[in-house]
């Protein structure tokens, strides 16, 4: 069987950065497996700018950002198999792959880096009643049709969900000559980045209807309209608030789901909040030698953070290959409570951690003028004043090894609201 030191599943931003870092860390036999016909992943269809501010201090488009990594992969001569789908990963890291060129085969890996990204929540998952006509697309599918294939999904557009792709597509469809009537968001706040609301909706005069959702879909063949209704605090439609909006297109931007079917086949334990693997500070999953990074681990807001996280996964996988399996004792649990939904990593082995470790997390609702508390065991270690926190923006905290107490078993992040 073909054997590699590290096989990276996915050639998007996470897989590319992980591969580059692993190669630079000295791993020789690397292989990137990519299901698409080119590297770069979803960045290839993200032709808007705003990528790379943190990494390169520049505002790049998605393809430009990807290109910087693809070039490095080429320079480092890291082999890539394109048009290759991983069908299965066994717990002992044998990958079954299929492709037009390479056929069906099995590949063994001493370490695997999961970098499959995420997918969009479809209409069906929302159980929106009505017909099932043409003209209903997830925002990312529409983005591909418009930006890569050059086709207009429709002309009169309603967008449900104010996730970033939905906001970006509101602008894109407008620029392409469509009429974007409104963006409806079931929550009382948007899940997207603030800058996207300002640049993609406000600048184009597109109304954002918070606490609204689609309650009916009309049109047997092609979409003819949707019925919008206001929702109460339990997200239930309020009778009498229904409004019919004629449109030929409904775009959905209602959440991203890490794509972990392969992780599950390998026996990787998943976090029910993130939908991604439970990992240690090394980004190691519950299966020895299997690492995870990028949106397959948890959905990120900025690609810069994906690249940074993936590079760590690559370095750690390289260490793993060089040193073999180390007795890990990840006995410190990290958790979010009281407003903090999750943390990544979820587990920490203090002896293995670097001097500084970035812990990432998200809050479950928007907050203003609150205190973020970091607890070591039952003791509050740090209180940080936060003017604004929002579910759409990922938060981070730099954990310094020198600060950690000896008897540490739990690190907890909470949001404390001021007493009124």
């Amino acid at each position, binding site marked *: 069987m073909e054997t590699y030191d590290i096989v990276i599943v996915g050639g998007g931003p996470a897989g590319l950065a992980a591969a580059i870092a692993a190669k630079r860390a000295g791993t020789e036999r690397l292989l990137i497996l990519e299901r698409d016909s080119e590297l770069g992943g979803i960045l290839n269809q993200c032709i808007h700018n705003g990528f790379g501010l943190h990494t390169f201090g520049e505002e790049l488009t998605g393809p430009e950002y990807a290109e910087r990594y693809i070039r490095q992969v080429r320079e480092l001569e890291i082999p890539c198999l394109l048009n290759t789908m991983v069908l299965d990963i066994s717990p002992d890291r044998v990958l079954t792959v299929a492709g037009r060129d390479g056929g069906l085969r099995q590949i063994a890996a001493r370490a695997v880096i999961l970098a499959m990204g995420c997918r969009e929540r479809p209409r069906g*998952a929302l159980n929106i*009643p009505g017909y099932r006509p043409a003209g209903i697309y997830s925002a*990312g599918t529409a983005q591909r049709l418009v930006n890569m294939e050059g086709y207009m999904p429709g002309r009169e557009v309603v967008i449900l969900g104010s996730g970033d792709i939905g906001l970006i597509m509101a602008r894109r469809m407008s620029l392409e000559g469509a009429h974007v009537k409104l963006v409806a968001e079931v929550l009382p706040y948007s899940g997207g980045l603030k800058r996207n609301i300002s640049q993609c909706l406000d600048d184009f005069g597109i109304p954002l209807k918070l606490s609204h959702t689609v309650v009916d879909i009309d049109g047997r063949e092609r979409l003819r309209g949707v019925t919008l209704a206001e929702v109460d605090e339990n997200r239930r439609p309020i009778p009498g608030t229904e409004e019919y909006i004629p449109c030929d297109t409904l775009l959905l931007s209602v959440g991203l789901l890490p794509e972990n079917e392969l992780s599950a086949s390998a026996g990787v334990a998943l976090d029910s909040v993130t939908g991604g693997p439970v990992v240690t500070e090394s980004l190691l999953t519950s299966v020895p030698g299997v690492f995870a990074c990028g949106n397959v681990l948890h959905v990120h807001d900025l690609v810069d953070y994906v690249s940074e996280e993936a590079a760590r996964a690559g370095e750690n996988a390289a260490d793993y290959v060089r040193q073999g399996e180390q007795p890990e004792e990840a006995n410190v649990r990290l958790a979010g409570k009281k407003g903090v939904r999750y943390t990544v990593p979820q587990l920490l082995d203090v002896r293995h951690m670097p001097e500084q470790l970035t812990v990432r997390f998200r809050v479950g609702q928007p907050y203003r003028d609150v205190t973020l508390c970091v607890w070591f065991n039952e003791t509050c270690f740090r209180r940080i004043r936060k003017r604004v926190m929002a579910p759409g923006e990922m938060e981070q905290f730099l954990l310094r090894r020198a600060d950690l107490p000896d008897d540490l078993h739990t690190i907890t992040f909470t949001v404390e609201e001021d007493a009124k």
Partner: protein
Amino acid sequence: MYDAVIVGAGVIGCAIARELSRYSLKLCVAEKNEDVCTGTSKANSAIVHAGFDAVPGTRKARFNVEGSRMMEALSHTLDFSYRRNGALVLCFDEADRVHLQELYHRGIVNGVEGLEILDKEALHAMEPAVTQEAAAALYAPSSGIVCPFGLTIALAENAFENGAEFRMNCQVQSLRRAGDHFVLVTDQGELESRAVINAAGVYGDVLHNEICAETLRIVPRKGEYCLLDRRDGTLVDHTIFQLPGKLGKGILVTPTVHGNLLLGPTAADQDAREGTNTTAAGLANAIDKAQRSVPHLPMRDVITSFAGLRAHIAGGDDDFVLQQSAPGFYEAIGIESPGLTAAPAIGVYMAQLVAEGMGLVKKEHFTETRRSIVNPRELSFEARQALISRDPAYGHIICRCEQISEGEIRDAIRRPLGARSLDGVKRRVRAGMGRCQGGFCSPRVMELLSREWNEPMTELTKSGGESYLVVGLTKEEL
């Protein structure tokens, strides 16, 4: 001039076509939609009912049991997915046990084999996920599940191979008698035929009333369903029914042959013959009742919901109509549940009726079997490897969720009566039927449809008619 025109390419029309194609005749199936299996046949419970529900002596009882007995062998002959998973009818109250007994006896009279009444303990040993509130259950081991698309398409392809002509997008606008034959005015002009067979589903009454003095009325009876992710397909192994109600067999929870979990249907009469929209109330009702049978259904795993229409004849005797209603005018209408189960038996019966009526003789050469599109996932590693090295398109995965390859999609398009639309591909090979519901693969499947049919993307549809997928090129309107 045709010898016979079958109106409707649902499972009934296709079953009749297949059986009739055993005879020497010029046969045509006229379908108003773009594909076979687009009406009631595509949106139902996909159950091969054992046959204990129907009132003994009715056509429903007879053809249910006959169809159920035929299904397994037919699934081999025509190569479609079928599994005999058994069914359980729950009763929630000791007082209702008499109704279980009633079903049991009905089943015995109807000739259903293997029926058994289980007490609570035996029931839960068999299906641990079923509610503790269930007091007892009727067990019907002969009940099964089938792929309704697979069955219908297999029948159609086999009929086609044996000489039946299929006309899609060919709605019959009117039907009249002209001397010794009929004239059907259709979207494709006038068709002449010696015999007409009405298998028009929820439009069966419209066709009937064109010819027969005694009119009848079909009331579409809507059933709404939710389909759950494949990870939940093993929650129950049997089809879980509740004691049947007045309008139907009640809400069931069942695995599908593809490993998903299906729940529904509701039952609500309506006027709209194309009203296959789901409703908030209907879905809530379906979920609510399903949870009565199987609590803790993981409803966040719903991947889609849909509705189908049963062709119920209003004010009739609640039975199938299978007859020669006027000279040369044959009808298989009012085919509500257990119509899918009964379809193969109805096909045989109707074909005989027509053959006798018209004095048809059997062909010398009839091709009995049909092979389905190869499913690489069902092959051994070595066989799949060999297949891919022979034809690399089978190694190129287009639909990630269901792992469907370009080769399968290409086959679905190139076959006789091949797929013309996104939904047509989906029904044949399941591309887009998985958990992302076509988010990733739709544009790719569209490219393949465009390539294979040599049609611009702007002409492609989701399901025929005006269901265009894209409306033009970018920047056209600027």
